[in-house]
């Protein structure tokens, strides 16, 4: 195998796939990237047996073939190479010679036959989803994925294709983020499944803002085709709990707030919330919200926001990180905050079909 490639192109291609490789693997082959050179260019593939990612890179191939090389080391080498053009040749024993300007590297690889193939999706259900929509929906929900491994069904995003709608949901028991989108698909394709967190991360890296993505679904695997890149992942097995039970019914008070203002204010005020209490208190009065934080041994912060509000006066406290997470991921100028009382969950909504349920913190005193 032999090819010439631009440094940037090679680096981009490798960086697209290298995140899947974990630093501690049981098998040496899993630390490697599979490089397949054909007339069309290079295909680069990595996997950790749960998630696999594959992408392409433009290259001038003079001799086709395949090998695997340790990906982390390869990326480090390519990044440091002095010249913009690189020549790579691999001999029959999977030893790669890398030439670039005056430098020369030799690294030892493993045969491509040992690399576990990604699952095939020949008889799978197919869905066509605009990349921008899916990317946006993931961004609006992924921060709420639970990291508690004893509840493994929550370690991913619940994705439902029902009644002409794509719904994504993530929750960790303290908050729940949900987003809906109209989507066309045949009614025979109605289903739901859970995409594991690791695949979600890879998706967020690869999804762009233009063009469509093809989602293929088999019994226990899912595949995302994004341009020339592919992500294949196992699904989380089990039933996602009924998340609709979490969403409160009628609210008593509704406020409309500027998203950016609320975010900035919360960020500033939270500088003085202690690790221990880790909360900011929102106090609602006539046409004004006071955002406060105080920790007895540090100090306190207070900032007020002008808002149209005529309801009763009361306070509610939230974890500032949890309050800021959805605000950061949204793009709308305005958000609605629906509240019942200081002990009931608050609900953040946008004009779009986004909804975020957040449990308040207990305020002592």
């Amino acid at each position, binding site marked *: 195998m032999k090819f010439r490639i631009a440094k940037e192109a090679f680096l981009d291609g490798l960086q697209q796939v290298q995140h899947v490789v974990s630093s501690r693997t049981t098998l040496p082959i899993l630390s490697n990237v599979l490089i397949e050179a054909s007339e069309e260019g290079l295909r680069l593939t990595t996997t950790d047996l749960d998630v696999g990612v594959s992408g392409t890179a433009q290259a001038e191939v003079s001799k086709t073939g395949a090998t695997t090389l340790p990906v982390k080391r390869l990326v480090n080498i390519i990044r440091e190479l002095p010249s913009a053009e690189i020549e790579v040749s691999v001999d029959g024993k999977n030893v790669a010679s890398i030439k670039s300007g005056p430098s020369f590297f030799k690294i030892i690889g493993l045969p491509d036959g040992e690399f576990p193939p990604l699952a095939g999706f020949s008889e799978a259900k197919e869905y066509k989803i605009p990349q921008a929509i899916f990317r946006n929906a993931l961004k609006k929900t992924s921060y709420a994925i639970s990291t508690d491994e004893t509840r493994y069904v929550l370690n991913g995003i619940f994705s439902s294709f029902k009644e002409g709608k794509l719904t994504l949901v993530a*929750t960790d*028991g303290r908050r729940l983020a949900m987003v809906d989108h109209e989507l066309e698909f045949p009614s025979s394709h109605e289903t739901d499944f859970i995409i594991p967190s690791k695949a979600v991360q890879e998706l967020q890296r690869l999804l762009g803002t233009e063009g469509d993505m093809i989602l293929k679904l088999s019994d226990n695997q899912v595949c995302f085709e994004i341009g020339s890149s592919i992500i294949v992942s196992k699904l989380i097995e089990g039933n996602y*709990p009924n998340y609709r039970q979490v969403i409160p019914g009628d609210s008593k008070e509704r406020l409309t707030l500027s998203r950016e203002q609320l975010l900035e204010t919360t960020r500033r005020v939270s500088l003085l919330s202690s690790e221990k209490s880790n909360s900011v208190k929102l106090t609602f009065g006539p046409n004004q919200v006071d955002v406060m934080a105080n920790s007895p041994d540090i100090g306190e912060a207070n900032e007020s926001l002008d808002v149209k509000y005529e309801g009763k006066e009361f306070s509610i406290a939230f974890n500032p990180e949890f309050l800021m997470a959805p605000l950061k991921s949204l793009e709308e100028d305005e958000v609605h905050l629906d509240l019942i009382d200081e002990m*009931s969950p608050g609900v953040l909504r946008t004009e779009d079909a986004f909804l975020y349920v957040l449990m308040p913190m207990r305020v002592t005193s």
Partner: protein
Amino acid sequence: MTKEKEGGQENDNENHGDQNNSQTWNLVREKLSEYISGDAFSRWFKNAELVDPEQQDGLVAVQSDMHQIWIETNYMDELRAAFAEGAGIHCSPQIVVKGDVEADLPKAVVGKIPLQEDNQKIAVRGARANSSVKVVTPNLEEKTQAFQRKLKRLGINPDFDFESFVVGDNSQFAHAACSAVAHQEGRSFNPLFIHGRAGLGKTHLMSAVAQQLLANDPKAKVVFLTAEHFANEFIEAVRKGNLDAFRKAYRHVDAMLIDDIQFIAGKERTQDEFFHTFNALLNSQTQVILTCDCPAPEIQTLEPRLISRFESGLTVELQPPGFETRVAILRRKMEQWKVELENNIVVHIANQIKSNVRRLEGALTRVASYSFLSPENMSIEKVDELLGDLVRDENTHLVTIEQIQKAVADYYNLNLSDMSSRRRPASIAFPRQIAMYLARKLTKLSLVDIGDGFGKRDHGTVIHACKKVKSDIETDPEVRGAVEKLNAALERRN
């Protein structure tokens, strides 16, 4: 029980519609509705109920897994307070999903012949099952999710049960003892002291007992923790000054299982506290199980009064598994993981890895994942390559002739030089023969090398020594005892 809380007048308040709610639960609910707002209360607790109102264990059944998740994450403090304030019950509440409840106690009803009182209990449970809780046929094969979660919460690995433990000559006695304790046939096995080297299944057996006890009675308070954890909790309690709560937590339990007890060695105050806890438990006939990586008297810096107490019950030892057991373990694992390997490969792995079950599993993981990826390249040579470092590790554990000579000389009070000297009085010659026998057994050296190690003796001398000791072991219990002790001491050194 509701105690003197002015009888039954105050039921029939807003919470109605569920005849099954005990008065206790009504009191708790009432308190709870003060702590959390109306919407949240009706959303999460409206249809919740106590699993067994007779018990003051705080086991609450809710209708879905989302209820369980949300309550466990957000309302446990309120629930605990409501139990305490409303009904005077101090407990750590647990949430189970209805339907899982019955399945949560699978083996209790089926496993043993019911006694009179058990019969009544079953009748009660059966009645409730019919009225409100969904009946689920208890599936003995698969543990329910709820049961698994419960185990995890208690720090017990659900995979470690009696079914998954491969019994061999090395572990038969330990297994039988644990099984007796788990089925509560062995009140006199208290405390049960399990010792053996790392990776031989101590924790596995103890977890299995814990699981069985919980299966027998899901409400049993089983404490399962490592000695280190115990020490940490104790230190924390001392720091915060709530020793009382600490004592309560550990002295009012149904079974106490402590892993790796050797960790309390050298921690004087922890030992002291443990001593009292231990005594309190034994006095109240509470089952105690301890595991340790060596026999109790060999724990360094452990107080003698603790040693004697550890030895007051039943002591069992786990030995490294024999060849057949190792093969059986591998086969069991393969079945579990649904992998297939050639017979000769399995035998080869079992031959290479001898000292430790955990390492054996590690070896199988490597070979199995390799064969999964490229089955056609599987060969004995490949296995050797994959297991290279593990096998090297095993072999470095072999003892040297010098170590054997030193151990034997120490045991018989001889000088080390006597081992290789030309002197031949029986008091020296026989120990020397024992040392040669052990060298033959424990090292991979040839007869000639062993002869060389013992003052350039002929290989015939070594053969003679081995035969002599072997036949003496069969006839003379004193010799047998000595050889076994030396053997064990040398193996443990690894």
